[in-house]
């Protein structure tokens, strides 16, 4: 059985990735799971300069899910390269760097800066974070703007470029097409759904930021649908995510059209979740004589 998959130009030893923002900079999990076994680790979204993020409370549980409004807190690209990347270089695991900017030029500059760092294997552009500040959430909701920002980043880097889409749109496939047309090598979907919870006793939003992003199993059926819609619209490979808790869930995404899958919220419930899921995929494949994950991609029979 050969587990390797190609996410565009990015070659992975296996299709299981840790999702951005749920796996820290990788080192946080090193005492808890075998990072080296994962196909890739996607680090917490980075920006040119460090960000403080939102005040607490930043997270709250909801039915079969959670809201987060971390607000893109990060240590900045330079510290990441200096302090965090060396740790990640010791593993076979590929390193995908999730990043964002406040303007098109910031996006391009961030991509350029990351491209020269040793040990970064792919870039994942977050144009979809719902914790909007500076009104930039438009990057992920208007296909014309998406095309422009992705084109600019494409010019700034020769690295495998993954564009991470927002699910908070009317037509996800149209957004996918815009990113593909602008030169993306692959797409990640989905990011979180914008959501809100209110404490009825205090009458205050449960998150200091008022709204946050919904992740976890609650959103899985929406995510699977979006992967399926995009698979039929674009040719570039898809990384599926949204509520994957088990190997079965991961396989569901592959059948819908995902070449690889990312595990997010499940890491919080079980720091070994991603490795367990990989193991479960292997078991599933060998029980059925499936020789490559590629046989599963898009294999849903409609």
């Amino acid at each position: 059985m050969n587990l390797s998959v190609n996410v565009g130009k990015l070659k992975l030893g296996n299709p299981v990735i840790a999702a951005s923002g749920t796996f820290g900079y990788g080192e946080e999990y090193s005492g808890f799971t075998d990072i080296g076994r994962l196909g890739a680790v996607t680090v917490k979204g980075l920006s040119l300069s460090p960000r403080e993020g939102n005040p607490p409370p930043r997270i709250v549980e909801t039915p079969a899910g959670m809201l987060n409004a971390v607000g893109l807190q990060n240590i900045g690209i330079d510290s990441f390269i200096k302090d965090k990347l060396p740790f990640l270089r010791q593993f076979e695991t590929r390193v995908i760097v999730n990043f964002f900017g406040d303007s098109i030029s910031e996006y391009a500059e961030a991509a350029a800066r990351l491209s020269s760092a040793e040990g970064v294997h792919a870039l994942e552009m977050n144009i979809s974070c719902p914790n909007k500040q500076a009104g930039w959430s438009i990057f992920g909701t208007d296909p014309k703007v998406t095309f422009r920002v992705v084109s600019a980043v494409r010019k700034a880097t020769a690295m495998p470029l993954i564009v991470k889409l927002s699910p908070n749109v009317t037509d996800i496939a149209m957004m996918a097409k815009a990113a593909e047309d602008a030169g993306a090598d692959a797409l990640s979907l989905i990011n979180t759904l914008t959501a809100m919870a209110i404490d009825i006793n205090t009458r205050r939003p449960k998150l200091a930021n008022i709204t946050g992003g919904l992740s976890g199993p609650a959103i899985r059926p929406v995510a699977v649908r979006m992967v399926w819609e995009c698979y039929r619209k674009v040719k570039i490979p898809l990384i599926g995510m949204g509520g994957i808790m088990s190997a079965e869930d991961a396989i569901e995404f592959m059948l819908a059209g995902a070449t690889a899958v990312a595990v997010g919220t499940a890491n919080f419930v079980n720091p070994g979740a991603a490795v367990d899921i990989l193991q479960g995929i292997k078991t599933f494949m060998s029980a059925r004589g499936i020789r490559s994950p590629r046989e599963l991609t898009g294999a849903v029979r409609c």
Partner: protein
Amino acid sequence: MSRLFEASVKENRRLTEKHYLLTFNPLKKIRRPGPGNFFMISAGNGLDPLLKRPFSLHRRTGSGIRILYRVTGRGTAILSRKRPGDVLEIIGPLGNGFPARRAGENTILVAGGVGIAPVFALAEHLAASAKKPVLFYGAKTGSDLLCIDELKSIGIEPRICTDTGDTGRKGPVTGMLREFLGKNPSFSEDCCIYACGPESMLRSLSALAGEYGLRGYAALEQNMACGIGACLGCIVNTTRGYKRVCRDGPVFPLNEIIW
């Protein structure tokens, strides 16, 4: 390597209307937890609730590891229905724990409500030493006071106050501490405070410690998802910027916390 383990419930005893004492036995060898460490415990065995909940080490005994908890919502309500033999999924021990005190230093322990859970662990740890800690313990009413007998059995006579005054002194625990500090200037000269309790209590304790120039530490709480420093969900604002309660804490120097 993983600090994820299963544990079997040994006992889940109801102490008051809202409080329970749960003893569990890990089904594999785990690291030894210390005072101020905590565990992320799954209350359900499916998706409801989804995330694990943090609970402090309360006591290590021959029969297992104990947590002392208050039913506040869905997760703790489900936890309260666990029976002996049920299996819990747990991550831990986690967090920095209370720092060791300096040699020869006096110790003041302050607990508010269910904050007695980790404070007791520290009290037990320190009770054997030459300089016994002085423990201040505040609760809403007398019936909310927990582990009084256990405290006595480890040789600690808690100084008690309640909001209602039906047991101990009436008023906040910081009021009682302030009086004590006033009456015992020599004690407070070389002394460190360790505390856990509601935010309002810790906030006035910070102020009091500042006033008297005392060192001190508080174990903080914040909503948590991962418990291991990855999600950046459990932030507290400090003089050194935002810090993660789960990994950089849960114990922070009182004078660094920005309320």
